[in-house]
Structures are given as C-alpha cells and as structure tokens.
C-alpha cells in the first residue's frame, strides 16, 4: 500500500512539474524574461 501511495505521489509530482513548466513557458505573465530589458523598454514605448 505504501508503495502505491509513493507511486501516486511521484506521478502526481511529475505531472504537476510538467504542467507548471508548460504554463510558465506559454501563459505566465511573469515568465523567465523578468530581466529582459528589451521587453521592458518596449513596454515603456507602448
């Protein structure tokens, strides 16, 4: 039973990690481009 629970936790964690990565890549507003100065300057122009 413990093994089944551990598998469920591991698979859920893997799904959560990939889902979060996908969301951050494509949909998050604060993506990894926080340091992107060009994007910031373009925002200012807009």
């Amino acid at each position, binding site marked *: 039973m413990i093994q089944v629970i551990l598998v469920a936790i591991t698979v859920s964690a893997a799904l959560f990690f990939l889902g979060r990565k996908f969301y951050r890549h494509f949909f998050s507003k604060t993506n990894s481009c926080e340091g992107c100065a060009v994007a910031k*300057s373009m925002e200012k122009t807009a």
Partner: protein
Amino acid sequence: MKIALFGNPNTGKSSVFNMLTGLRQQVGNFPGVTVEKKSGSFKIAEKEYTLTDFPGTYSIYPRTKDEEVVYRVLTDSTSKEFPELALVVLNASQLKRNLLLCSQLYDLKIPLIIVVNMSDIAQRKGISIDLEKLKELFPGCSVVSTNARIGIGKDRLLKAISTFDFEQNKAKYSSILSNFEPANIDELTKQVSETKERNSWIDKVIPTIQKNEETQKTGQSKLDRILVHWFWGYLIFICILLVVFQFIYAFASYPMDAIDLTFLNLSNYLQETLPEGVFSNLLSQGIVPGIGGVVIFIPQIALLFFFISILEETGYLSRVVFIMDRIMRPLGLNGKSVVPLMSSVACAIPGVMSARTISDWRERLITILVAPLMSCSARIPVYTLLIALVIPDEPVFGFFNLRGIVLFSLYALGLISALVIAFILKKIIRTKEKGFLVLEMPEFKSPRWQNVWITVFEKVRIFIWDAGKVILAISVILWALASFGPGNSIEKAEKDSNAQIASKSWSEDEKNQFVASAKLEKSYMGIMGKTLEPLIEPLGYDWKIGVSLLTSFAAREVFVGSLATIYAVHDTSDDNTLLINRLKMEKKVDGTPIYTLATGCSLLVFYVFAMQCMSTLAVVRRETNSWKWPLFQLAFMGVLAYSMSFLTFVLLS
C-alpha cells in the same frame, strides 16, 4: 549603489562584469553575445554594489531593439535603472571608435569611470595610450587600465569605484559639445549632425592620447588571409568540423559505456534489493533508466562545448561568422542573421534572442523561424544513439570514421536547410531593408583554459539540470503509462499470452519477452502508441518510437530517456543489456529488425527538421509576441520533418 556597464560591442564588457562580480556570464568575441541586460553584485569593504551589463552599442542612439534599452536608461534620469555610477569600457586598440559613446556619456553628466580594456592587444599592435591625457580630456572622471580577460587591473578598478566621489568631481565636469541635449529617438538628422561634431572632436584629440608605433605585418594577417579565403577558408572550416566530430566519437565512447553500465547495474541492484512492489519498479524501470539516458551524453556534450569554446577563445569563430556571411549574402539574407544562426548550433534559444540585433522586423522574423533548423546540442544524444545503432563503425580514407562523417553531414543538412528555407521565406515575406554584418576581427590568442572549463561546466550543468528535470518527470509518467492499463486489460493480456505460449518450445527468456510485449501493448502507453502507429508507419517507425517522438516534443533529448524507460519496462532478460543492444535486438512481428538503416536514417532526418523543443517555441512566442509564428514554425518544421523522413525511408528501404 547601482553601477551600469556600457561600451561598444566587443570591448570586453562581459569580461569586466565577470571580473568584478565573479559570475560566469557568457563572453564572446563577436557582437550580439549580450542582448539582454545582466545584473550581478559585489562588495567592497562591506558596501554592496549592483552591476548591470548593458548590450554593446556604438552610440547612445539605438539602431536595433537591443540597443534601445541603453538610450531609454540614459535619457531618463527618473528611471529606477538610471545608474549612480557608469563604467564605460573602451577597447584600447580601437580607441578612436570607442570615444564617441564615451563622449556622449560624459556630456550627459553621468558619474563616469573610463575603463581602458584589452591593453594587451593594444600593446601587441604597437598602440600606447596616455591615460593621464585621457583623464585631462574628461575632467572629473576616473580612468583605469585593465585586461579583464585575465583579471589584470581588478584592484585598480575596485579602488576607483570605492573612492569615486561624484559630489566632489561634479564641479570639474566640462562639456565636449556645449549645451548638449540628447536627440529624440526619431530625430535622425539631429543625431547625425551630433555624431559628425563628436567625430571631428575625436579626430582632433586622438593624436594626443594615442601613439602608434610602426609594427610589421604580423603572421596574424597572413593567417587571416587563408582562414577567410573563398576556398581555403571553407575547406579549413569543414576539416575542423570533421576532426571535432571524429574526436567526439573517438573519446566519448569509453566514459559513455562506463556510465551506461553503472546505471544498468544500479537498476539491477535496486531490482534485487528493494522489496517487490510498484514503487520499486518505478525506481528501477522508470527513474534510473530515465536519468541514465541523460547522464550518458555528458561526455559528448562536454566534448562538443570544449571544442566550440576553444574555437571561440582563439578568435577563429569570428572568422567562421565572416565566411558564413559570404554564403548568406548571395541568398539575400541579412548579414546580421549570421550570429543568431551560429549561436543556434549550441542552442536555439540564445540564437532566437540574438536576432534582436536585426532592426528590420521581417528579416528578424525569418531568422527566428529558421534558427531552430541549425543542429543544436540537444540533438547530439539522439544523433549519436541512432548513428551508433545503424551506421557501421568503418574507417573512411584511412583516418576518418563513417560515423563522424554522418554526424558532420547532419549538421551540414541543418545549415543548408536553414539557408534554403530562409531564401524561400525571403521571397514570400518581402523585406525592404538590407542589413549588413559589422564585425571586428579579434586578434588570435591562445585559449584561456579557465574560460574553456567554465563554458564546458556551465553547458553540462544546464544540460543535466534543465533537461534532466524534464526527462525525469517524463520518465515517471511514461513508466506509469507503460505499467497500467484500462480495467484489467493487462492481467487479461498476461493470461492470454501465457495460454498462447504454453505449447511453444521457446526458451524461458523468449516466453517472458512475449508476455511482457503483450502486456505493454495493452497498457495506456501501448494504446496511445498503437493509435499513433498508422501515422508514423510510412516513416518505418513502430509504436514505441512513436511514443518517444511524442514525448520528445518537450525537448529532443527526451527521446533517448523515453526509449530507455520503454525498453526497461519491456525488458525481462536477466542479462545486463545496454540500451543500444536492446534496440538492436528489437524485432517486428515478422522477425525482421525494427532499427534498419532506412528506419535509423529516417529518424535522424526527422530530428534534423522537427521542431521538438517546448522552450524554443516559448521563446519564439515571447520574441514575436504572438502565437501565430511559433505555431506556424511548429507546423512547417513538422511537415518538413515528416516528408523528408518519408523520402529517406522510401529511398533507403
């Protein structure tokens, strides 16, 4: 205290940044290495300083998107990013050109330290700079000489930063152009007249600060004549690439075999020692083979970046950029596309980002769309596994190896297809502007081994950490999909297959393999793969390859990890069987091998063309600010990959 680092491209700003902060920002000797600002910090006597490295620019007036940030920061003193102190890095061997930006910063009355860098190269060229005279030209500023590449002048620079007192120095500031007000970004005429005025001032002052001693033409220019020659230049480049790929094959195989065996033993050890159960299976059949599928390629990735780094450190890569520009121009491509395309050989993400140096939007878009066709380092695991699987280990002309030549051909195919597609896109998306590559040829120098090792370490770390996490997560999910099925379908498959083999005179191993195959086919993964199979059958692939192709949409290197997991679940033999041997033994229903020359080459071609990288798609979306272009890219590269693999399979079958 906020300090900003400005300077022309290729003055060693990133080296100054690394020297002060101790960070390992990538340095390069061609323009476009820094397209985003980068920040780091350092302390002097417990006082914290934040240092920001801005993209290289010849003037405060921008010509490209990446240069706009410098203008915005410098012309808005209310901005949060406006520096309390600016370091302007000058290339001692190109002082005349570098003084334009320096004079503009001075006239903006920004607290300024002038860093005269690359003093070693100036010395070799017979150029001497009178630092005192330079200081007199910019009263109120400090002047420091450095050779940041090897850390010379760090103490002098730190002292200059810590003792700089702008309140005291402010009064000493004079003006080079009286009543200077920076022109607006669109006031081109005003910008040109200001630049002319500054250049005449520079022409006047340069003889007072710079002395040129008569130097003989060095071997440098003779070497350059050969390395950028229209025939010898390309031949030498091809030979260097061939040698690099030969080395990758020759030296990487020993550590790779050792790693493969270690993970196999670990997997067997876990299987034997852990109590029976699903989690034990997950560890031994899912996680360990999945991680092994990543770690095994460290030697090849490390070797590739070792050679790339040496070529860059010596200054040869800049010559490559130059000769590539010569190929691109007749195809009507923008000269500035060369650096993004060459950067994409390491990874398409920095390649796509460095396309910001291209001012014309359509030119930039074409470069972004074709950059992922250049063979990146993530393709190396896939290429090497498949080449080792289907290409014989035979010598060619006595000293080359067929496998190395095939690897070289795949890189060449990526480059040629990028050029051809860019040429076609150029005809469809008509562009008005013609951009030119402005490139300073750096001096040839012996590689700095510390930089080489740092590059290798960083690239391997990124490969392990970034790709490793995704591969691990996908391995876990794949294992679950391969181990479970709807209802009691797996138990039923086991029962049926056991009944089928009862009368057969097979060995125990063959019987176990048959049952495992039947169970796998009824699992969720089997159902998924079988649904996909009709689509990929014309390319010569079976459903297991199909599942690996599907999972590798996250990242190309996932393909190998996925195969490792699928075959670990499938494998029931007691022998230690390496992944490559498992793949070689894989047979179709009629007993013929799955991985033939035709299937292997078809897969190789698929990976040359397919857009199998979630991160690149995300960066393309960010850079184009639209979903349309990444989806278009995914579609056109997918169609290209499918049709070219189909053609390859048909021709070789």
